[in-house]
């Protein structure tokens, strides 16, 4: 595989313990859009640290403040409060120096559609002051890495969404960044394309690149992140590894049951199910989440919980026992349903 390890400038950071990014009480408040309107607090005092070599995720519903945080880290949006240090530097003073060592994959592709694939990387490399020969060599490596070598001389416009996304990832790596920032890297991609992107990001992780990403896909966060924070309403609701978060905020298993759409059975079942909570017996239910389409019963033994449900005389039309996932943590922490 091509050498995608971090750039030689890594040595610039003093000690291995020193975090690559450190935020304390970081805030972003947007002024009112209308005269007499209220200012909008997008990020409301968050603390986090990013360590070298890890994949750090920001998980949260739309509007949680993830993208605003990414833009502050990317030095394109000034913080309105708190402290932020990136690669040991202050973005207010050294934004250009910091950005020279970052790679950014924005939420929406920002490729030059009038140019060829290769030329997009050329232009971008030149922004970083790289020499043509350097860019050419790097371009060959990167296009191979994102599986676009055969498209090097194609125009960008007709490429599929997944290909454009991969090209954006290749572009973000042109300067051998020490930190790669990805804002919802797979949003809007079909399942096939998502898996290709995940595979590439996983390889980057394996090669030691430090990644910081936002997502609202639980499986993405679970697969890629070493550590993550759950954001909601501009604040950090929880922090830890995916496993820690699941252990802390969920049970080992989840029983999902569905009722006929008319709702009569479901209404009748409500009280019976509530009686299963905290019985202390085998199959006891830790807590119950009612979603519009189904009811989730959190239990360390899903099969036993299902038996207990049947024991109450409740007959769901469908049931499923599964392992707890980050989605359960997310639902628990951010209040059930996703905000759109």
């Amino acid at each position, binding site marked *: 595989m091509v050498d995608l390890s971090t750039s030689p400038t890594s040595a610039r950071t003093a000690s291995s313990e020193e975090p690559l990014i450190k935020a304390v009480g970081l805030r972003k408040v947007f002024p009112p859009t209308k005269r007499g309107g209220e200012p909008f607090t997008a990020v409301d005092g968050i603390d986090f640290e990013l360590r070298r070599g890890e994949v750090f995720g920001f998980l949260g519903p739309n509007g949680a403040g993830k993208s605003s945080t990414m833009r502050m880290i990317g030095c394109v949006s000034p913080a309105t409060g708190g402290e932020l240090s990136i690669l040991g530097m202050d973005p207010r003073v050294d934004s250009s*120096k910091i950005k020279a060592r970052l790679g950014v994959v924005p939420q929406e592709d920002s490729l030059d559609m009038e140019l060829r694939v290769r030329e997009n990387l050329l232009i971008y490399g030149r922004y970083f002051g790289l020499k043509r020969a350097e860019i050419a060599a790097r371009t060959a490596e990167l296009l191979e890495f994102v599986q676009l070598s055969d498209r090097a001389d194609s125009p960008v416009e007709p490429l599929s969404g997944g290909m454009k996304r991969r090209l954006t990832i290749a572009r973000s790596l042109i300067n051998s960044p020490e930190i790669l920032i990805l804002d919802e890297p797979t949003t809007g991609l079909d399942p096939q394309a998502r898996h290709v992107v995940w595979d590439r990001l996983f390889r980057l992780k394996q090669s030691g690149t430090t990644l910081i990403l936002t997502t609202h896909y639980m499986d993405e966060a679970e697969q890629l992140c070493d550590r993550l924070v759950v954001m909601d309403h501009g604040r950090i609701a929880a922090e830890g590894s995916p496993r820690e978060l699941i252990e802390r905020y969920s049970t080992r298993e989840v029983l999902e049951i569905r009722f006929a759409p008319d709702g009569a059975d479901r209404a009748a079942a409500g009280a019976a199910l509530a009686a299963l909570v905290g019985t202390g017996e085998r199959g006891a239910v830790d807590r119950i989440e009612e979603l519009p389409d189904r009811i989730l019963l959190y239990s360390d033994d899903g099969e036993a919980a299902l038996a207990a449900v049947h024991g109450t005389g409740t007959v769901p039309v469908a049931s499923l026992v599964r392992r707890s996932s980050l989605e359960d943590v997310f639902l628990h922490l951010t209040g059930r349903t996703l905000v759109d």
Partner: protein
Amino acid sequence: MSAVTPVPPGTVGPTAIGPASSPPMAIRELRGLLTNYRRTWRASIVSSVLAPLLSLVALGMSLGKIVDAGPGAHTFGTIDGRPVKYLLFLAPALLANTAMQTALGESMYPVMSSMKWQKTFHASIASPLGSFDVFLGRVLFVGLRVLMNSAIFLGVMTLFGAVRAAGPGGLGALLALPVAALTGLAFATPVIAWAVLQDRDTGFSAVFRFVMIPMFLFSGTFFPVTQLPLVIRPLAYVTPLWHGVDLCRGLALGTATAGSVLLHLAYLSAVVGAGLWYGARTFRRRLNP
């Protein structure tokens, strides 16, 4: 509340990274735009050549013959007691108009495309470039486009014999070239600065219709502004186009006085300066919210 005060991240110097030889940030943006232009120039080159050709033939030569033979021929100024031929009067003014039209054409839709459609501005500012570098790079690019189209126009003028050997060394018309570029920049800087704020493109056709066309007609291109009614004459004097037209014409015909040259240059430079100041603000507002 705020321990942090926002600072514009834009820097113009080679302050960022890499070897000392790495070019200033705005030049990097300019180079990117030129790379793009290398792909797309064919579409614009036809109109760059054709437009001056048509206007010189239709207005300068055909209409010019009638004007030169008519009783008002002296209205267009005299040199050595003889009336200036209409073609010679008109051509340098059309040069300034070419500069304006090129500048406006490159400063609206392409800016919106970079801001909203393709979002390449956002890609630029994720690199070591700041918002002001992106703005300045665009200004320089439009300046080069204006210079290029003006040079083509001057070439066509020469072919049509619309250039008088005047001024220092008989090269007065050549001096009009940088003036045309400056005239273009006087339009480009404020218009790019304004265009980046636009959410829809409806304002752009209004600029063409209600700014460009009236200036084209009333800023002394076809007749001296002294022919305008006294009340609206000051309106012509405040347009950058009039200053560009009068200066290009004065230089091309060799009739410019030192005072008028300085006045026109100062006015056009002031407009460019104001545009740069405005653009620094609007680009920061849009790209570094």
